[in-house]
C-alpha cells in the first residue's frame, strides 16, 4: 500500500509538479543564457561535440562508406550514358586545358614582370569530414582537426576548388565549419569582371543569394564570385562560385565547391592583417625623425 502511494506520487504528486517546473525553468534558463552569452555556451557545445563525436568515428566512417558505396552502385546503372557524357566533357576540357596552360604561362610572365609576391603565409591544414550538422535546420560539418592542430575560429575552409565555409567552434580534436549555405553565414564578396562588392548570405538553399548589390545592370549570370577580403574575415580572392539567376528572379551564387561530397577540406591558415590605425603612416615611412625636425621650423616661423 505504501509502495502504491509512492508510485502514484512519482507520477502525479505535487512534489513532482514542482520538480518538472524547475526542470522547465532550468531549460529556459539555459536558452536565455545562450541568448545572452552565446560564445560561452557555444564553447561548451564545441567541447561536448569534441568529446562525443570522435569516439564514434569507428561507427560513422563505415556507415558513411557503405552508404556512399550504395549510391555509387546505383550510378552504375546509368554507366553508359555517363560514359558518353564524360567523353563529351573531356573533349571540351581538352580545349579548356590548352587555354588554361597558355593563360598560366602568361600569368606567370606577368607576375614576374610586376614582381608580385604571393603571400607565402597562406598554408593550409587538411581535415576529414567526421559528421554533418545532423539536422536540415543547420548547414555545417565537423572536421577531425581542432585546437591541437592550431585551428582557429574564423579561418576559411575550401575543398579542392572553391570556398566551403568558415570555422566556427573549435574543440580540442574537432572543428565545426559553418557552410556558406547556412543562414548564419554572411561573407563579403567581389563579383569579378565588374568588381562590385556584395554580401553572400546563406538561406538554407543550395545556391545562396547575393545581397547589397549596387548595380544590377553590370552583372550577368556566369560572372565569377570571389571573396573580397573586406573586414579581414577571409583572405581575398578565394573562388566561391558563379552568379546565376534563381527561380525567384534573385541573383544567387552557384557554388564552385562540390557540396554533394564534402570529404576532405582544407582549412587555410590566415594571419591577422596588420592594422593601420594612423592614416599618416599610410603615406610616409614610419620614422620618428620628421616631427623633431618640423617643430623648430614652426617655432622660427612664429
Amino acid at each position, binding site marked *: 500500500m505504501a509502495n502504491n502511494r509512492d508510485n502514484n506520487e512519482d507520477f502525479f504528486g505535487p512534489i513532482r509538479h514542482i520538480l*518538472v517546473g524547475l526542470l522547465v525553468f532550468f*531549460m529556459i534558463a539555459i536558452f536565455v543564457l545562450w*541568448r545572452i552569452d552565446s560564445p560561452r555556451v557555444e564553447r561548451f557545445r564545441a567541447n561536448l561535440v569534441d568529446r*562525443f563525436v570522435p569516439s564514434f568515428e569507428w561507427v560513422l566512417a563505415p556507415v558513411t562508406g557503405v552508404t556512399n558505396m550504395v549510391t555509387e552502385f546505383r550510378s552504375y546503372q546509368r554507366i553508359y550514358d555517363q560514359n558518353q557524357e564524360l567523353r563529351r566533357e573531356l573533349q571540351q576540357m581538352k580545349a579548356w586545358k590548352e587555354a588554361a596552360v597558355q593563360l598560366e604561362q602568361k600569368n606567370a610572365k606577368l607576375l614576374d614582370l610586376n614582381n608580385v609576391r604571393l603571400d607565402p603565409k597562406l598554408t593550409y591544414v587538411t581535415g576529414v569530414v567526421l*559528421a554533418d550538422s545532423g539536422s*536540415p*535546420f543547420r548547414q555545417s560539418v*565537423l572536421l577531425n582537426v581542432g585546437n591541437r592542430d592550431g585551428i582557429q575560429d574564423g579561418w576559411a575552409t575550401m575543398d579542392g576548388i572553391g570556398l566551403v565555409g568558415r570555422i566556427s567552434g573549435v574543440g580540442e580534436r574537432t572543428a565545426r565549419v559553418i557552410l556558406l549555405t547556412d543562414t548564419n553565414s554572411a561573407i563579403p564578396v567581389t563579383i569579378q569582371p565588374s568588381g562590385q562588392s556584395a554580401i553572400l548570405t546563406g538561406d538554407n538553399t543550395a545556391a545562396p543569394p547575393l545581397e547589397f548589390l549596387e548595380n544590377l545592370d553590370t552583372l550577368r549570370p556566369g560572372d565569377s564570385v570571389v571573396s573580397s577580403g573586406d573586414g579581414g574575415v577571409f583572405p581575398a580572392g578565394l573562388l566561391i562560385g558563379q552568379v546565376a539567376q534563381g527561380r525567384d528572379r534573385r541573383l544567387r551564387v552557384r557554388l564552385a565547391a562540390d557540396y554533394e561530397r*564534402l570529404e576532405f577540406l582544407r582549412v587555410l591558415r590566415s594571419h591577422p592583417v596588420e592594422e593601420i590605425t594612423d592614416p599618416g603612416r599610410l603615406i610616409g615611412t614610419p620614422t620618428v625623425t620628421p616631427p623633431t625636425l618640423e617643430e623648430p621650423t614652426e617655432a622660427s616661423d612664429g
Partner: protein
Amino acid sequence: MDDGITKSPWWYRTLYVGVFVVILMWQLVPLQTVPRAWAYPDLMLAMTFCWVLRRPDYCPVFLIALVFLFQDFMLQRPPGIWTACVIVGAEFLRSRMLINRDLPFAFEWLLVTAVLIVMAVVSRVVLSVFLVPPAPVALDASLIGFTIVVYPLIVVISQYGLGVWRRQPGTLDSMGHGA
C-alpha cells in the same frame, strides 16, 4: 502478452537511451551536406510520446530532459527551448495517460498531433520573441507533419517489437506496484 512485467524498467530506460544514441549517430553521418527543403520525422520525439502514454515509468522526465538537451547541443539547435517544449508536452500526455487508456487509438493520435503542433508553434514564437532567426516554415512543418505520420508506426514497433504495452488495470509491474 505483457512482456514488460518480466523486465525491469531500467532495461527499458537503457533501451531508450540506446535507441537515442543510434538515431543521433545516424543523423550525424555526413551523407547530406546539400541543403534540402524538408526534414525527416523526429523519431525520438514520436517514441518518447508513445512510451509516455504507455509506460510512463520507462521514460522518467529527467531522462527525457537529458536526452533532448543533449540532442539540442549536438544538432546545433538553440539549447533548451525545444527541450522545455518536449518536457511540457510529455508531461501533459503523462497526465492524460489514465484517461487516454480507455479511448481508441485515433484519439491518442489526435492528441499527439495537437501537442506536436502546439509545441512547434510555441517554440517558433519564443524564438522570434528572442530575435533568433527562425528556420524556414517548410522545414518545421515537414518535421512535425512527418512525425505525426510515422507516429502509428512507432507505436506498432514499440508494442510488438520492444514490448512496450499499456499496463492493464489490475496488473502489477516489476516492483509490485499497481497501475
